[in-house]
């Protein structure tokens, strides 16, 4: 007994450290992304993207395509830049002081960054769902109707009602809230709030939906509900999802991108990534040797 515990205690701290060091070594040697980062029918194209927070570089030379009606999962250890990368796609990084984005990013071959690009219509085309459910402190109806209202999508009240109902139906929330549309959205449960946020995002008919760890604040049942929803939404939308859960990435995505310390290490079919990873860092991560 005694010797065993001593052994374990002695061996444990050393192991991840060596993997980490090895990982950095490998990175300095191999800067090319392994797998298939590009695709033919790309909705979003990113080429040689670098992101800086002041002096510090958060994203190093990432090139990636996200195909039409495809779900791409982005995985990687904390602080690897996957959220930063996601937030470049609808320019949410603009609001962060000192954040600078370099490289070519385009949506349907139209540039995302550039002096003449207006972020308002861009964000209407690229919707976003955040980590923590963040409904407005307004009624359920007003939450969903907000986007159509500010963009002037609905011309009549009846049309707006229809948009709200359709969005809530698509988000699988209609039956639960149809009798209390005037009640505050903040009064719903966590999972319902997150589906409300998805309904709010799809109410303006975006082409792309970005999801930043949408289930990390939810219980397993609510998570399963959202995952089903993502699968249904794939028919009409292109989805990029950041997640900490590898099972989730495996369940919902067609392709998976593995980020490590700001580098895009490997992109492949989800199945390939999880069954036959080509890069040793990916393998180390998905087998749980560090994270």
């Amino acid at each position, binding site marked *: 007994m*005694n010797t065993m*515990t*001593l052994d374990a*205690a002695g061996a444990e701290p050393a192991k991840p450290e060596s993997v980490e060091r090895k990982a950095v070594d490998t990175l300095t040697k191999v800067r090319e992304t392994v797998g298939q980062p590009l695709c033919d029918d790309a909705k979003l194209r990113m080429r040689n993207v670098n992101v800086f927070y002041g002096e510090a570089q958060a994203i190093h030379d990432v090139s990636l395509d996200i195909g039409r009606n495809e779900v791409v999962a982005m995985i990687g250890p904390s602080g690897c830049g996957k959220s930063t990368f996601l937030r470049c796609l*609808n320019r*949410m990084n603009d*609001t962060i*002081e000192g954040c600078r984005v370099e490289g070519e990013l385009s949506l349907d071959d139209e540039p995302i960054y550039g002096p003449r690009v207006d*972020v*308002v*219509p*861009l*964000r*209407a085309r690229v*919707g*976003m769902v*955040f980590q*923590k459910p*963040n*409904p*407005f*402190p307004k009624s359920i109806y007003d939450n969903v109707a*907000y*986007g159509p209202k*500010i*963009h002037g999508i609905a011309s009549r009240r009846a049309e707006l009602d229809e948009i709200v109902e359709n969005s809530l139906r698509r988000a699988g929330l209609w039956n639960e809230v149809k009798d209390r549309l005037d009640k505050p959205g*903040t009064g719903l449960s966590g999972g319902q709030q997150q589906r409300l*946020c998805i309904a*709010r*995002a799809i109410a*303006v008919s975006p082409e792309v939906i970005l999801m930043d760890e949408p289930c990390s604040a939810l219980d397993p049942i609510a998570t399963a509900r959202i995952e089903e929803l993502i699968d249904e939404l794939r028919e009409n939308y292109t989805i990029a999802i950041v997640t900490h859960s590898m099972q989730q990435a495996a369940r919902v995505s067609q392709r998976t991108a593995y980020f490590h310390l700001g580098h895009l290490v490997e992109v492949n079919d989800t199945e390939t990534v999880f069954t036959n990873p080509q890069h040793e860092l990916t393998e180390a991560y998905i087998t749980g040797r560090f994270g």
Partner: protein
Amino acid sequence: MTDSTQTNLTQQQVRERIEQRLASRHRKEKLFRGLGIASIAFGVLAVVVLFTDIIGKGSGAFVQSAIELRVHYDQQVLGIDEVDDESLAWANFTGVIRESLRERFPEVSGRGEKRELYSLVSTGAPFTLRDRLRANPELLGKTETLWLAADDDVDTFVKSLSDTEEGFRGRTSEQKAGWIQQLLGSGEMKKRFNSTFFTNGDSREPEQAGIRAALMGSLFTLLVTLALSFPIGVAAAIYLEEYAPKNRWTDLIEVNINNLAAVPSIVFGLLGLAIFINFFELPRSAPLVGGLVLTLMTLPTIIISSRAALKAVPPSIREAAMGMGASRMQVVFHHVLPLAMPGMLTGAIIGMAQALGETAPLLMIGMVAFIVDVPGGVTDPATVLPVQIFLWADSPERAFVERTSAAIMVLLSFLIVMNTSAVLLRKKLERRW
């Protein structure tokens, strides 16, 4: 096992040591709690003493001794034939009152005694008669029974009778005191509600002095202050918090706003005197200038509290709105401002309460003048409540002591109402997320 390499204590020893310290830890806990309760008790005691003192001194001002007299509106004594504005201005109402007093005390003779007798009634009483006659012209030549305000010396004496047997006579002669006792005994002199205090402006005669002018002055001044400082303060806070880049210039601005909040208010008064009155030649003693000066004074308070309210809005709300494609202005006006409004309003009300109690800067711009007329607008000469208190506290007549306290009561009640409404408003508008 690994613990043993760091220390040689057994679990038993560790537990003993913890228990040894326990008693002193509990003692300190109790002491700290006791200190907290003691300081709150001290604060409450101070407030109770202050309030009982002020209410004890000031409550007397809300009643005023009055004398019941049979008044004959004699055309001959008045020296008028008909009631119109010109004749009313000339009419000898003093004579009418003296006539009534002589009628009531027929035994009084000699100039000195008569003068004593006449001084029973307030020198403002003739104006009461004039107003009565103007309102009811048919009274000319007729007789009616009226309650007329007593002189302040008489009033002070009557009120002091309830404290001591002798009463405070002061300038009142023994003979006069006898008349007063006689009137009190027959019920012809009574303490009645002092409505004059709420309807009149300032006066050299305490029984005619009221807070109406100061109250209206305060109201106009605060209206100007609120109308200017709230929009300017909120706009500045929104710009600094939501739009301005964080660089050396905005840091400098922020430091200076905090500095402004700490500048002694009299300095703002000097600034107002130099700029608004001397340079822009705005009228002296006017609520307009007072409001401008107080705006300068309250702006930092409002900006700081508004910025704090904006900061308290969770960033997730901003992100949500921005992620929907709302423009910056839409984010601010649809989401951030409604959530920050309770905090901003609270800050504004507290700033206004501060402004209501401010005296020093207003002295510099001439709002300390002796102003009898109730102001009707922001450019009329006026004074404000705290300055009125200052003026009355300076007056030698004893009757002004209770009026000073009464004015403090009015000021304090306004402050309490404002602060309570700030708390209630915040509770009512506060939204949770």
